[in-house]
């Protein structure tokens, strides 16, 4: 089995759960308190794709979210093999931000790379503000599959990152 190292980036509005998703995926832990990320945090996680006989070493870039998407420049995105775009199903404007990020992405990279959309905080389904149809629509628009996820319960987290890994390799 050969080992490949790949860089992926997480993009999305502030407080949608990017850092929590990485933490759940890498360490299997979750914290209810909120600590805003500034700058960039890189974590590493090995993912075995036995069907493809590849041991993937993911370098996961957690970028500070918010309206500072203009700061998400080539220095941060260059060399990325894929992107996880995250929205928070309890805040409808976090979905709009995905389109902004997707435009920024193509502008900076000047090429298309695989994207997976995570509709996060699915444990809070009763406070839902984003419906399936809206997710289908953006999914089609930016040509990326979407999955529900919860960094809190862990639901869909592994699936999300694995889906992207498979698209990359």
């Amino acid at each position, binding site marked *: 089995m050969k080992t490949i190292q790949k860089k992926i980036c997480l993009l999305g509005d502030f407080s949608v759960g990017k850092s929590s998703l990485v933490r759940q995926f890498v360490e299997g832990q979750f914290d209810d308190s909120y600590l805003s*990320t*500034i700058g960039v*945090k890189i974590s590493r996680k090995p993912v075995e794709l036995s069907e493809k006989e590849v041991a993937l070493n993911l370098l996961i870039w957690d970028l500070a979210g*918010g309206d500072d998407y203009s700061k998400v420049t080539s220095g941060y995105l*260059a*060399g990325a093999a894929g992107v996880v775009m995250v929205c928070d199903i309890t805040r409808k404007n976090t979905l709009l931000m995905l389109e902004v990020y997707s435009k920024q992405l193509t502008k900076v990279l000047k090429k298309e790379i695989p994207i997976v959309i995570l509709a996060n905080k699915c444990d809070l389904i009763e406070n839902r503000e984003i419906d399936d149809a809206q997710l289908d629509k953006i999914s089609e628009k930016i040509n990326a599959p979407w999955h529900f996820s919860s960094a809190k319960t862990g639901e869909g987290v592994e699936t999300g990152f694995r889906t992207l890994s498979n698209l990359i390799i």
Partner: protein
Amino acid sequence: MPPQPSFFSNESRAFELLSSRMGVAHINSDQIIESAQGITQQLALSPEVEVVSQPVSECFVELFGLEEMIDLILAGELPFLELQEVNRPNDVGGIDYFDFGLYPADKNKPNDGLILFIENTTSQGRLMQNVIQQRNELRLTQQELSKANSELHSLNELKSIFLSMAAHDLRSPLSVITTYSDLMLNSADNFDNSPFEPKYVFSRILEQSIWLNSLIDDILNLNMIEQGKFPIEMEKIDVQEPLKAVVNQFQHVLSTRNISVSFIGSEDAVWAFADKNRIKQIAFNLIGNSAKFLGDAGNITVTVSPLPEQHEIKISFADDGPGIPKQQQERLFQLFYRTPGASKFSGTGLGLYIVKTITERLDGEISVESEPGEGTSFNITLPILIVE
């Protein structure tokens, strides 16, 4: 004057301080580290492995994947590369922040190699983190507030809709009471000569008062509307009973206007699982509506047809009035038609909205058939209850 040359010498105190907070490395044109000083080595991916003579992008995770960009700087096509506030976990479970920069070693000859410049920016980073944290928390609070605000707004709207619905409903029984009281007052001096049976008239007045009372109960139960509920009490009824009762009331009131109200039903009971007061409410609205448009003469017919094969009961309220133009029929059941900019409610829209709402709550459907000059017929279907 201190001796200038020794100030930045390797042995100086100034150099010692600088090297505890900064790191520099010289990168050759093949992207290999040629020399490293300060904190460079301790920030490497494997601090125990000497970084010198290794590719720079393999020593720092932050630079992995950036090889092409580094080549661009070496080719003079990109002035520099900076990564700000790179997070690194520290020994006490917190985060330290570093700025990474790659610059040409010689501004005029980029091909001569690059300088990797690393600066520990933890103190500014923490301040910045604090500011961003507060800004984001504030924004979240703002978003929650505006959400709560719009929820309150629609709740408020729901309340005023209910109030207008109720006010509209109060009017029909009140007009029956007024008419009968007026009749009685006019013949109060000589009941014996009155064409109306006082016992009958007073019982109608009483019936309408009871009906009014139940409507007022609804208004007082506003909290139910807050939960989006419109109280319905389902029971096994002969749907003809409440309809006949309303037809009866209108027959007496409308006879003075030369309007006939007739009921065509079946001998046998037509069973449904429904709310008799809500059925009365439907009849009040539809018959009252027809009466309003008929003027001084006309016919209103209420027909009940049980259709057990289709599992339904068809109730039609037909009149031979002026009819409704096609283009208005679609809007008929919309909640009070508002002229743009104004907030006045049109009279009829409300009643028909109530009728439609009730019909749907009774698992029924409503439709309208009308041609200008040909009269109007409102058709309601309700599920039938088969009683063995």
